[in-house]
């Protein structure tokens, strides 16, 4: 009985702690790069593709700062969907959103060379993450209430 009480309190506190971690991570500016993005080269049916893998633990608003010219494309690694593409010539500073936590692939799909760096200026947990924490937290709280209620009888 007391074992379950301790276990459920720990998990409930862990759920609350996770939310707190997200609130303090929200404004923490992360950075990646600068990266030298060599353009994708195709010769016949052979492709040479240099790429950058970026990982974010939340969905993030990213500010890219690029020099050179080319097309910066970001893909979700798991699904292969295009998240953002932006044509750069000269210097460009633009923002885009990485929709969920996970890995992203960034390539230069243009013809000449680019240097890019990325700043992660806002980080929010996705809805799925929030739901998983709220639902598990509520379940822990309810079970804990049940344990305490049976305990007192």
């Amino acid at each position, binding site marked *: 009985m*007391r074992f379950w009480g301790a276990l459920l*309190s720990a998990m409930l506190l*862990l759920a609350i702690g996770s939310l707190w971690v997200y609130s303090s991570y929200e404004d923490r500016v*992360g950075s990646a790069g600068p990266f030298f993005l060599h353009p994708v080269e195709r010769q016949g049916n052979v492709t040479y593709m240099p790429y950058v893998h970026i990982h974010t633990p939340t969905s993030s608003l990213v500010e890219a700062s690029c020099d050179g010219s080319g097309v910066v494309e970001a893909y979700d690694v*798991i699904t292969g969907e295009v998240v953002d593409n932006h044509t750069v010539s000269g210097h460009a500073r633009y923002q885009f959103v990485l929709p969920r936590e996970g890995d992203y692939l960034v390539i230069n799909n243009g013809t000449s060379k680019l240097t890019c760096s990325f700043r992660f200026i806002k980080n929010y947990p996705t809805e799925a993450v929030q*739901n998983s924490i709220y639902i598990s937290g509520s379940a822990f709280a309810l079970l804990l209430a049940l344990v305490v209620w049976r305990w007192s009888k």
Partner: protein
Amino acid sequence: MGRLYTLFRWEMNDVVKNVLLLFGILLAGMAMKQSLMDVSSSTGSAYGTEIRLFGASKALHVSLNIHDLLHLSDVWTLLGFLILLLGALTFRYDRDSGVARSVYSLPYSNTEIFGVKLLSLVIYGFTLALLPFAYVSLTTYASIAGHLPEITSRFIGDALVLVAFLVLYLMAVATLTSLAAPNAFLAFIIGFAVIYAPRVTGSSEIPPQLFISAISRCWNSDFTPFTARYIGWGILVPLALFAISWILIKRRDVV
């Protein structure tokens, strides 16, 4: 069976052990959560006629991050500490406080008492090690939770086997030192020395360092935990230590 279950419930519901479990899960979980909260990146290139860039198995950093959770130095320091304390509380503290005189005079054989106490230690140990890991990795990557089995397939089996070996070893050391030492503090300090000496001397040939560095290496596809060294330290040594503890508890009077 009800007779043993009463003993088991009593053993599981010890207040100090419960408090330890509470803080252990919370601290280990928070340490894991904090370690995930970072942006990381890497560069690479693909070359060939057919390039496969996408798919769950290509999510390198998610996989690496979850893998890192299992060999965080903070977490293993904490778990080593807590499992030693749990061992001392389970096997030694009841004797120090005098409770053991009553418990051991109940109609249970020493072997039954040992078995039940060991079972509760095993449950506590594995709960502490695995529950925070599972919760943190599932909630942090909830949007891609469906892909996690494929993302982690590269290391998860081997890594969990090594975690089990390491936890078993820690519990075996905790059990033996608790039963051999004259009081709970000494049991804890001796266990502490046995567990921490290999870490501070940087010797990676003996546990716990052996397993912690093996967990970080099971990323390589040619790595397997089923070699004589890992099975020896992870199963045979713990079994031997448990056997010695069993003999000690059968032979020694409750002091």
